[in-house]
């Protein structure tokens, strides 16, 4: 923090001391304040090491591995099971039990927030929704595939409603194609905004869940379940994207019977491409919202606004932010929201630039838009690796508390399963381990993305020379993405 003090003129120090009380704005009680990661910024040398590694490994991938890409990687599939087991007695019982459980847990989360304690740590719904589902559910989808498409409580509720009300699931109107995935992008942005800045308590979380249930059921009634859960329900879109990376896939064959397939991890990303610009924005928001969450807690971010290095605030309001404090706080909320919303478009802009460059170098006749879409999925390993390295320790420190919360979901002092006292203590992973695992995870994601982009480029361009040339800007962009990600993780964090 010493750097922060050094940058303030001496005569302002006194004023600042008076203001420090104010400056200690109530740190937002977001998921990560209620559930702390306990993470220290990554040491600077490790950031440099990671960034250099991204560069070197990129060339290793290009130089060695890609030269001998097995052409069948994307097509290799091993049938490991027939989904007919779902229709066997035990399979059917299990599936029904899981589905009932899914709807029950949604109802429980709403009920505990409305009726139970409003202390975030002691209410079941906060830990379950923000940590178990949002983090754990995501990582589960990356391993076992799209569990959510079967167990989404909203899908199940709409199906239930469809049994009572014929025609409900078909909807009343055709889904307007030009809306594409934009509704999902909007819902996703609203969700992250609430998570990071909404000061959510258990009771407000219940209202959010209720409102989202209402919106989903209404949406299905208007546009039909198929379109709604494909384009609008952001969690379904999110999970579907993550599950493309899973080594397990569920598919129906020509006869309509389901099969469980084993494939190479990430190979699913080579099937198809994002269908629309909005899907690309969605993917970039997956990355930029994680980056923003990291950046918003750094000294760098804090100084960028409160010390007004651009002079914009002072010029606009007539006083520096630290003096016009009350007004500045409102602007700060707006400033953060605007950057959050703008963030995926900034990433998209950079991506677009490098795609244009690659297209120029390869002298390709494919349009820039088509190329941008074609390489869209290859970014997902970077997205997932960054997400995991940011949040996995939270899953460990806070997620483990679900064992105790299960026994006392409302915070009323129950002990239903006798687990209330279990894992109560603080599980804090060793910082050394966390740092190293973060760097290795991010590098692994980077290597995977570089590899996939090369495989795609070999499919898109007719000559190997074109493919290689087109990948030079792509490589630069991925090194930058990884470098910026690591840089954010190495930034000192804002104290009080």
């Amino acid at each position, binding site marked *: 923090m010493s*750097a922060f003090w050094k940058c303030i003129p001496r005569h302002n120090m006194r004023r600042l001391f008076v203001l420090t009380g104010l400056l200690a704005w109530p740190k937002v009680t977001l998921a990560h304040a209620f559930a702390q990661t306990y993470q220290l910024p990554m040491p600077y040398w490790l950031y440099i090491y990671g960034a250099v590694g991204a560069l070197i490994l990129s060339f290793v991938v290009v130089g*060695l591995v890609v030269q001998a890409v097995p052409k069948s990687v994307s097509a290799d599939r091993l049938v490991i099971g027939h989904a007919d087991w779902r229709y066997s007695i035990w399979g059917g019982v299990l599936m029904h039990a899981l589905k009932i459980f899914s709807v029950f847990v949604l109802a429980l989360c709403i009920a505990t927030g409305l009726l139970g304690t409003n202390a975030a740590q002691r209410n079941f719904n906060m830990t379950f929704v923000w940590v178990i589902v949002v983090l754990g559910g995501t990582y589960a989808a990356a391993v076992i595939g799209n569990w959510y498409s079967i167990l989404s409580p909203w899908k199940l509720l709409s199906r239930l409603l469809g049994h009572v009300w014929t025609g409900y699931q078909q909807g009343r109107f055709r889904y307007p194609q030009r809306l594409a995935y934009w509704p999902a992008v909007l819902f996703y942005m609203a969700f992250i905004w609430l998570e990071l800045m909404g000061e959510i308590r258990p009771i407000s979380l219940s209202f959010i869940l209720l409102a989202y249930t209402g919106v989903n059921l209404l949406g299905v009634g208007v546009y039909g379940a198929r379109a709604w859960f494909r384009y609008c329900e952001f969690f379904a879109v999110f999970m579907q994207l993550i599950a493309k990376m899973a080594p397990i896939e569920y598919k129906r064959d020509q006869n309509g019977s389901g099969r469980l397939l084993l494939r190479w991890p990430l190979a699913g990303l080579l099937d198809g491409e994002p269908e629309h610009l909005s899907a690309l924005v969605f993917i970039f928001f997956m990355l930029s919202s994680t980056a923003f969450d990291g950046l918003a807690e750094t000294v760098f971010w804090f100084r960028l606004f409160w010390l007004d290095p651009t002079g914009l605030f002072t010029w606009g309001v007539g006083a520096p932010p630290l003096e016009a404090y009350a007004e500045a706080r409102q602007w700060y909320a707006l400033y953060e929201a605007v950057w959050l919303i703008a963030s995926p478009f900034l990433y998209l802009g950079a991506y677009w630039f490098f795609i244009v460059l690659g297209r120029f170098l390869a002298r390709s006749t494919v349009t820039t838009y088509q190329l941008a879409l074609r390489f869209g999925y290859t970014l997902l390993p970077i997205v997932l690796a960054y997400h995991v390295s940011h949040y996995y320790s939270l899953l460990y420190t806070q997620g483990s508390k679900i064992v105790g919360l299960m026994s006392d979901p409302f915070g009323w002092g129950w002990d239903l399963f006798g687990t209330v006292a279990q894992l109560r203590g603080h599980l804090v992973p060793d910082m050394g381990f966390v740092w190293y695992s973060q760097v290795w995870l991010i590098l692994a994601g980077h290597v995977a993305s570089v590899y996939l982009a090369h495989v795609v480029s070999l499919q898109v361009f007719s000559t190997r020379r074109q493919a290689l040339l087109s990948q030079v800007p792509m490589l630069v962009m991925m090194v930058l993405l990884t470098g910026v990600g690591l840089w954010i993780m190495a930034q000192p964090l804002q104290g009080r």
Partner: protein
Amino acid sequence: MTLPAESGRALARSPLIVVLVVVAVVLYVGLWFVLKPSALMPSSAEQPQQHIRYNLTIGQAGVMGPRVMTVQQGTWVDISLVSDRADELHLHGYGKVIDLHPGEMATLRFKAGVSGRFELESHRSHQLVSVLEVYPSP
């Protein structure tokens, strides 16, 4: 689509590329040992000590004292606290809770055995009083 795979395989087998890759990997592994410092504390932080004491005063004007308390893992830490109002402070991660009575000094003493970044928070106002950063031993 047919790929000119033969030329690619030939390239992969060419000894020059293999040598270059091996050199790159060796350099990269070596870089780890060159870059990794003997201590993981940021250079601006205080020198490793057996025992560190911090003073924090909570008053109308806010909190006086360090915004961030940086220590090496294994250090004994004393945090002396004075507040002008009754309060309850919570050091996250370590699970320490301390009651404050107006004008009376209270001291939180513990060994910083777990590395990480831990907030010292007021349970009354839910405001951040300070942050304890414990850097792991190398």
